[in-house]
């Protein structure tokens, strides 16, 4: 197991390196000039040139790349070109909201989607199945921001149950955190629920056709036990997989949700940074999200063996 984890961690190094090179090149090829945004609208070309020099943007690409990698290896994420604050610090401020919302989203999604999928599979080809699956497809087919607006309109404006926007850390109180995080989480959950419910259903359908389910029924086991004890654990691996790979989708959703609900998370930070060409921030953020993605999927892989004893590393 440990050997496996070690192996996987080692295997992420080339992946992260490719991500790093890719992101770096992509950014430097992208038009846009951080010096220009720093200096504002009225700056003259000569002033821009001087600022570019200062920021090291006129160095050869290779030099810039190795400077950056060198810093990274030393654990230094650099300094934002715009705000002159340390990227690590910004990251620290911004990671919390995103992670908390993501965790809440995953929790909500799993709690909703797994039973939905199980029931749909159990009542395969009945109206229950159709209803559940239509709902999931619907979650797939409406843009995230529209869902966000609709939820705000209903729960924050009409019913006034929760605030329209904003974020409070759980350390400032569970109530305030919850009331602000619930709508964004629900918004994000719509895609995720769709994803997980469909996977659960498909996986359950397959498992429910297996011999050991028939064995369980032949033993006179109650239906809910059949579904949740016998079938679900066997269906877990693909569900976990989709939770892992769906994480990428979650990040895409986060970018939009954070805008709609005004949450100071890394999604918005990254988009802002991309639009402002704040290279150190973008690079760090994309490496970070890629790292999180890889980590989440490593977790998922390792957790397989928890659900399925046949999988041993």
């Amino acid at each position: 197991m440990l050997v496996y984890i070690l192996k996987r961690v080692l295997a992420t190094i080339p992946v992260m390196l490719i991500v790093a090179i890719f992101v770096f090149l992509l950014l430097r090829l992208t038009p846009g000039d951080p010096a220009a945004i720093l200096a504002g609208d009225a700056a003259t070309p000569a002033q821009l040139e001087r600022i570019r020099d200062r920021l090291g943007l006129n160095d050869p690409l290779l030099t810039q790349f190795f400077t950056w990698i060198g810093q990274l290896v030393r654990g230094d994420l650099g300094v934002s070109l715009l705000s002159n604050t340390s990227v690590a610090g910004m990251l620290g401020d911004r990671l919390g909201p995103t992670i908390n919302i993501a965790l809440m989203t995953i929790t909500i999604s799993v709690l909703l989607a797994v039973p939905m999928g199980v029931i749909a599979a159990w009542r395969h080809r009945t109206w229950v199945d159709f209803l559940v699956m239509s709902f999931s497809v619907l979650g797939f087919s409406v843009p995230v921001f529209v869902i966000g607006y609709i939820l705000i309109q209903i729960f924050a404006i009409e019913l006034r149950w929760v605030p329209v926007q904003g974020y409070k850390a759980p350390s400032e109180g569970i109530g305030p955190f919850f009331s602000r995080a619930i709508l964004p989480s629900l918004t994000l959950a719509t895609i995720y629920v769709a994803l997980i419910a469909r996977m659960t259903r498909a996986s359950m359908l397959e498992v429910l056709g297996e011999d050991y389910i028939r064995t369980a029924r032949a033993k006179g086991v109650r239906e809910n036990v059949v579904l949740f004890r016998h079938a679900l654990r066997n269906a877990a691996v693909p569900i976990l997989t989709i939770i892992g790979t769906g994480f990428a989708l979650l990040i895409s959703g986060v970018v939009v949700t954070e805008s709609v609900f005004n949450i100071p998370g890394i999604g918005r930070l990254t988009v802002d940074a991309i639009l402002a060409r704040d290279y150190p921030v973008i690079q760090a953020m994309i490496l970070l999200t890629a790292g999180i993605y890889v980590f989440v999927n490593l977790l998922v892989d390792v957790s397989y063996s928890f659900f399925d004893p046949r999988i041993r590393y």
Partner: protein
Amino acid sequence: MQFKNKDFSDAREVLNVRNLRIGLTGRPNAKPVIDGIDLTIRAGETHCLVGESGSGKSVTSLAAMGLLPKSALEVQGGSITLDDFEITSASHSQMRQLRARRIAMIFQEPMTALNPVLRVGEQIMEVLNMHSDLSPSEAKKRTLDMMDQVHLPDVNRIFSAFPHQLSGGQRQRIMIAMALILDPDLLIADEPTTALDVTTQLQILKLIAEMQERHGTAVLFITHDMGVVAEIADTVTVMQQGQIVERAPIAELLTNPQKEYTRTLLTAVPNLTPRPARAAASQSEVVRVAGLDMTYGGGGFFRRSEGVRAAQDVSFTIQPGRTLGIVGESGSGKSTVARAIMRLIDPTAGSVNVAGTEIAQLSRRQLRDHRKHLQIVFQDPYRSLNPRWTVARSLCEGPINFGVPRAEAMRHAAELMELVDLPRDALDRYPHQFSGGQRQRIAIARAVAMKPDLLVADEAVSALDVSVQAQVLDLLDDIQERFGVAMLFITHDLRVAAQICDEVLVMQRGEVVEYGPAGEVLANPRHDYTRNLIEAAPGRHWDFANYRVLDSATMTTGATA
């Protein structure tokens, strides 16, 4: 050979099936799957249900368990009563109460019938939790006790093992323990030993008999293996296409079958007497294998692992027109040898000489030119044909690869269809439009189309039922006669080996334990392992085809009946 001959007419009727009709759900006018069958099983009786594949054996048993797949099949008439309780109209919860307690079932595949993610002990104990109010410690004690009764070793360890950590035989014992722990009145066993090798099969059959003895359980035993039937049945019911053809006590059925279908079924069972060896077409050798070694895996980046030595120092030769059979239990390395000879895997060591060329070390590209000398027929007729290709396209693939013009290849394909006794229009159809036996014949035709010197048949008939199996064996025989090809025939079924092989090679754990003329090896085994194999073959003293005991003259082994 002694058959069971106890009289059950006074015993209690446990299961009563009357005029049962089962059809496709929602389609009452379609041809029913089960068409008005009657069945009575009495306490202590072992009732065998036999018949070709698809005749409705499993459906009948599932109906008795109330486990028909509702969306596909439904009871359309008749009744099933278990001690006067009507099952066809029982509610879900009534059925649930009944299962395990009154009526239990063992399924065919011990691999898949157990839940892979739950410990086997828990799976047995679950029955107790559901149907009794034993305390957890009592339940566990009872479970361990039951596991002991089915002769599982080291019950405490096995209790907390997962299914994949057990052997097939052990898994099946777990299934039996699970089925019998509540002492049900009726045990249904649907081909419980088909997936096991003969030695394990024998143990399981004995175990079921023992348990039945102990608890007086009625057993409905489903199988297509007449050997097993001869061994264990009190009464036999023969089914065909959803109907009952014949029912009789075992001795009566085997000695004096009444119906044509029963007779066909019995005649098709190959017997264990080796056929006389044929003369070789020539003294030259088509295949010479020497010192073949195959180790799977090994190496590894972090830990140097041992690898599986699946074949060690295997040597043999085959002459044209002759058949070498490789027998041995599952996992003994039979397929490995076949695949190494075919160069579908690269042997670790040794030489393989086919038609005068040493192929063990050829590169992939060089190998391609030699492919036409050797062909293979696989076990699974479903998967060995590309489901998306027409039969014609599959048949022409090989010849076209070797430069035969398409038109000519097509013409030849049509001839081949005749050879394997399929209609010509079969060429334009797809594999799924054929039965298993027909598919296997297509696969054989495809191999023969290459006019190989060596034909490897890896369990080529194991997936087929006896009557179809007999046809395919005949076909192979015919082809061999006609083209004089050498054949390497791999099987775990000694009856089949006895019928088709000139020479037999017995493998155990990758090693050759015995190699010689079929008559010698099967009639007069020298190695213990071979002897065990033969002794474990059920019904081996009965000559099914001739409805009589096997001529003891040919049975020179010291086994007692």
